[in-house]
Structure formats: C-alpha cells, structure tokens
C-alpha cells in the first residue's frame, strides 16, 4: 500500500530500508552484533596481539623476567632460526605431515573410498563404522590405545608380529606417531573422497572402459581430473591439522632424545617445561606463518584449476 501513495512522502523511509533489510536501523543492528564482536575480541584478537607482543620479549614463566619482561626485539626469532633443535623439529614436523597426512591419510583414505564402492553394502557399512570410530574417539583415548598396542612387554603388535621385547616407541618413534595419526585421521579423507567419487559421472568412466582404458588410465584420465579440487581441499585441511597436532605428545612426549619432537611439542617444551614463554610464543608465530604459506599455496593451486 505504501507504493500506491504519493512518492515524496515515502522516500525517506524507503531510503532507510535500503541500508538494512531488517529495518532495524544502524544502532539497534549494531547492538545485536556487539556481543559476538566482544567475544571474538577477547578470545581471538587479544591473544593474537598478545602473542605478537610476547614473541618480542624475554617473558618467562617464573623469575624476574616473569614479573618485569624486557623487550628484546627480534632476538627470539634469530635464536630460533639458528637453533638446531628448532630446525630438527621443523624437519620432523615436515616428515610427520608428509608421512601421516599426505601419504597416510590421503592415500589410504582414497583407496578405502574407492574400494568400498565395489564391495557389498554390509561390508562397506562395517568398515566405514570402524574407520569413523577411530575418528570420533578422543585423541587421548586413541593415544592410550596405541601405547597399549605398542607396549614392549605385553603389546598387541609384538604379539601379532612375533617380535617380543620390541620397543616400537623407542626404536621407531616417528613411524609410531605417523601410523597413529594415519589411523586416527583417515576417516575424514575417506568421507571426503567417497563424496567426490560419487560426483564422477558414470558415463565418463564407462566411456573410458569402452575404449579399453585400464584401471590406472581411468583413474588418471577421468577420476582424478574430476576430483582434483577435492584432493587439494582435503590436503589443505589435513596438512594444517596435522601440522598443529599436539596428540603425539601423549605417546612419545617428543622423545626419545627429541627424535619425535614435532613443532607443537617443541613449543610446549620450550614454553612450559623450560619456562621460556617469549621464545615459545615466537615459534608459535613462526608456525602460524608456515600455515599461512601452506594455505596460500593450496589456494593458488585451487584457483589455477578454476581459470
């Protein structure tokens, strides 16, 4: 009815309505958003800025530097980049990400997703349930299970393999945590890939079969080009999660002899055990930068595909 009356009288409210669809007005609309913004500021923005600040100080958990931290500039960063322990830890993290995320979870997830398409429904349901179970169990529970599995004296793995007295966590600490993380996280890749595989048009696969393409050729020429975006998204997510994963600490605590001390564990050890909060924070920030670089690389690759 407003539309049928004379236009000049209605111009003002109409213009106001155009600026916010709900017709609340700016002040009232802001009032709805403020609580959320306050929470974000307290729990996200402030810690981030605090980290930035701490990384530039010699702040410690105890002692004089805890009471009166001093500004040390980029000293923490220079020290980290020269610290062989940090570089070792960075290298181990790279191994951990490539081993458990890229190779372990991604490839095993794809193989599972592809294989489960061809098996009877019952078998698929059972396997999927088990894989999902590994995913939804809390990390602490899974870590305890693996400690029990790999136990030197009464571990299940030793009993199965017939290698009594084998101390897996001491002999192969990296391999142990890589297997642990693969076991724990494969479900995500499997679910993502089974959704992706459903999107591959059957007629294209059948066309490839009709001209005699082998299984590998079908995968390379039909399946992979279709799911490339899914593969990249999956790799991005699981690399970031794995890069920041602290759960291996529950199994090896970075040991023995720092041989499984990935970066999250290194940060924890430096900041909490050694009490060097400033140094630990600086490394957290370095991790954040590495995460950003990873994300940018993947997103670039994704965009390339769309153009």
């Amino acid at each position, binding site marked *: 009815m407003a539309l049928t009356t004379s236009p000049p009288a209605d111009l003002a409210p109409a213009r106001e309505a155009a600026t916010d669809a709900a017709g609340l007005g700016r002040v009232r609309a802001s009032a709805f958003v403020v609580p959320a913004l306050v929470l974000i500021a307290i729990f996200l923005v402030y810690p981030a800025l605090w980290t930035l600040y701490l990384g530039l100080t010699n702040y410690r958990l105890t002692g004089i530097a805890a009471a009166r931290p001093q500004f040390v500039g980029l000293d923490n960063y220079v020290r980290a980049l020269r610290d062989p322990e940090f570089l070792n830890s960075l290298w181990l993290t790279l191994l951990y990400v490539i081993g458990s995320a890229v190779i372990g979870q991604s490839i095993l997830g794809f193989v599972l997703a592809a294989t489960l398409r061809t098996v009877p429904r019952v078998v698929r349901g059972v396997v999927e349930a088990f894989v999902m179970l590994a995913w939804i169990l809390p990390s602490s529970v899974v870590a305890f299970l693996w400690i029990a599995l790999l136990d030197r004296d009464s571990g299940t793995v030793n009993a199965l393999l017939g290698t009594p007295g084998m101390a897996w966590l001491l002999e192969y600490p990296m391999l142990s945590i890589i297997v642990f993380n693969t076991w724990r996280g494969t479900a995500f890749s499997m679910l993502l890939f089974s959704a992706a595989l459903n999107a591959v048009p059957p007629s294209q696969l059948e066309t490839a079969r009709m*001209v005699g393409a082998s299984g590998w050729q079908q995968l390379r020429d*039909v399946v992979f*080009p279709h799911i490339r975006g899914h593969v990249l998204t999956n790799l991005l997510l699981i690399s970031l999660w794995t890069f920041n994963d602290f759960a291996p600490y529950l199994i090896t605590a970075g040991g023995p002899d720092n041989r499984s001390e990935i970066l999250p564990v290194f940060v924890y050890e430096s900041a909490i055990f050694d009490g060097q909060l400033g140094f630990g924070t600086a490394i957290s920030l370095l991790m954040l930068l590495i995460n950003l670089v990873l994300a940018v690389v993947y997103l670039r690759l994704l965009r390339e595909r769309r153009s």
Partner: protein
Amino acid sequence: MADIELRRLVKEYPGGVRAVDGLDLTIADGEFFALLGPSGCGKTTLLRSIAGLETVTGGHILIGGRDVTGLAPGARDIAMVFQDYALFPHMTVRDNIAYPLRIRKMGRPERHAKAEETAEGLSLGGLLDRRPGQLSGGQQQRAALARAVACHPKVFLFDEPLSNLDARLRLEARTFLKRLQRDLGVTTVFVTHDQAEALAMSDRMAVMDAGRIRQIGTPTEVFQRPASTFVASFIGSTPMNLLDAVADRDTLRVAGTTLPLPAAAGPHVRDGEKLVFAARPEYMTLHREAEPTGIEGVVAIVENMGVGSLVSLEVPGGADGARIVQVTVPEGQEPEIGSRGWAVAAPERVLLYRHDDGELVGSERAGAGEPVLAGAGD
C-alpha cells in the same frame, strides 16, 4: 563390419528381477536398429549388455560371429555414445576425439591428425581447441559421435542419442544421424523411448516390454500391423483407438454399431468371442450424417495439429461409461463442439486383437501360418 546375434540372453538382477528375459535377436550387418519401449522395459540394460557394461547372467552375445559374452567392454570393438555424451570436461575437443586412439597407443601427431580429419567430417573443424563446456548441445553430440567414429568400431551403440537436444535440433540431428550411419555403414543399435524417433531413423526396430521383445519389424510393419494391443497403443503420434468388440456370427458389435466381420479374420474367430477393435485416428473419417458402419458420438474436443485436427468423439454406453474415439480431420473441416458425428474406419486398416492376451487375430497363435490382414470385406 559385423552382425550382432543374441542367443537366449538373460540379465537377472539380485532379487530376481529380470531386465532381459531370454531374448533372441539378430541384427544384420550395417543395419540401423532401434530398441524401443517404455522406461523400465529393459532396452537400456540390453544395450549395456551388448556393450559389456552389464554382465549377463545367461545366454550368448556374438558380434561378427565371435562370442564376446565374457569379454571386457574394451575388447569388443564397440563404440558407445551416451545420453549425456560423456565428453571429458577437462580435455579439449581434439583430445576427447583422440582419446580412444591414445589408449590404443597411437602417437600424438597421428592421433591428432586422425581427430582433425574426423572432426572436419562432422563439421567440428573450428572447435577443436575448445572445451566441451564451450560447445552447444548439438556440437557436443557431434563431438561425442566423432570420438566414436574415430576409432572405427565394428558396432555403434547409441543410448537415447537425441533426448538431450531441444525439439528443433532433434529433427536436424535425426536426419544427420541417419545420413552418418548410412555413409559409414556400421551396424548401429540405438535405444529410444520416442516412437517417432524409432520410426523415422531405424531400418528395423524391436518394441520391448518387461524384458521381452513384443515385435520386431520394419517401421512400416510395426506402424501398420502392431502385433499386440501393447505395441498398438505405444506406436503412433496419436494413440490407436482400441475398443471392446464382440464377434457375432459374421458381424462385429463395436460401441453400439454393428460392422461386418472382416472376412480374413473370420476363420480365426469364434462366435461370441470377445475382441478388441483397433483403428488409427489417421485411418478414420468423420461424417456428419448417419453412416451404417460409423461409430456414433458427440464431438467433445478438437485439437489443432497444424495440418488438420484431432477430434475426440464421446461415444455413450459400454461397461465403463463413455468411451473416446479419436479421428483426424483435414484442415477446414473441424466440427462444432457438441455436434454429432460418425467415425468410419477404413475397412482395410481395421485390426482385431484378442481380448484375453492382446495378440493380433490371425497371428501365429491362431494356427494360421501367415498372419492375415484383418480387412473388412465390404
């Protein structure tokens, strides 16, 4: 070049559903063969079984005399064009057409030359560097055809080749496909649910229902003498008039009218037997005055069909209330709605079916060797 022979072919799904039920069929070398039927009749399953994409559960498939029943799809020397064309979206048209040759390990320059030559023949010349997404529906179809043609198969299989095109393009593509098939002379089987497509394109066609073939013949045979009421109701752009009838000595009582019993049908019909009287709307004429052999009714609907109109007459009586008889009338002779009319069937075009199983009167079951045309003898 090869013929296709199917021997007692069975495709049974787990749970006992038979999509193809003991089917025998021979398709001659170079023939353009249509599999026609309503959805769920097994025609696509049959095509996919020939392709090797479905594993048959019984019987044999022979192509050019070679038993291919157990062979993988790639080893059968067949090319298939899918309903959605199945072009690879990430490859250019050139790479799509050359793909089968690449799988056969032909070198890049050769296969590209071959692809270009084939594309040229299908007027895709300027589109080789495009992706399928940049092509129109008709161009996509030709690209899919080019991919099938480029590898010189013994047999082509087309699954609903025209259904993804709009109506105007469909007519063009129909002519185009028919010419292409004639030029190449490759044995071709195509599946369609559109009777007009099957009639227009095929050399021979099979009408399928519930996993079995109900009739095989040339389009003319199937159109003029459907073997059963099922085929009769399925074929033709206007459905055939099917009316309950009863034989009464040498006459036939249909919709309140008594017609002479067609002489040829006489020996096959018992006195008092229930039959179905069938005549196409195109083979009936509408009269405004009473006709002794006319079925009387009231004009209920007149549908303009461009050339002429389709008139629906409401015929009173019958067990299930009023029945409809449809008649086509020439341009300019449309009757008034509500007026009376008499529909007279051309006697030589009248067909009689048995009421119980819907089979054509005078077909093999009746014991007569040659099926007879149930023409009325007046």
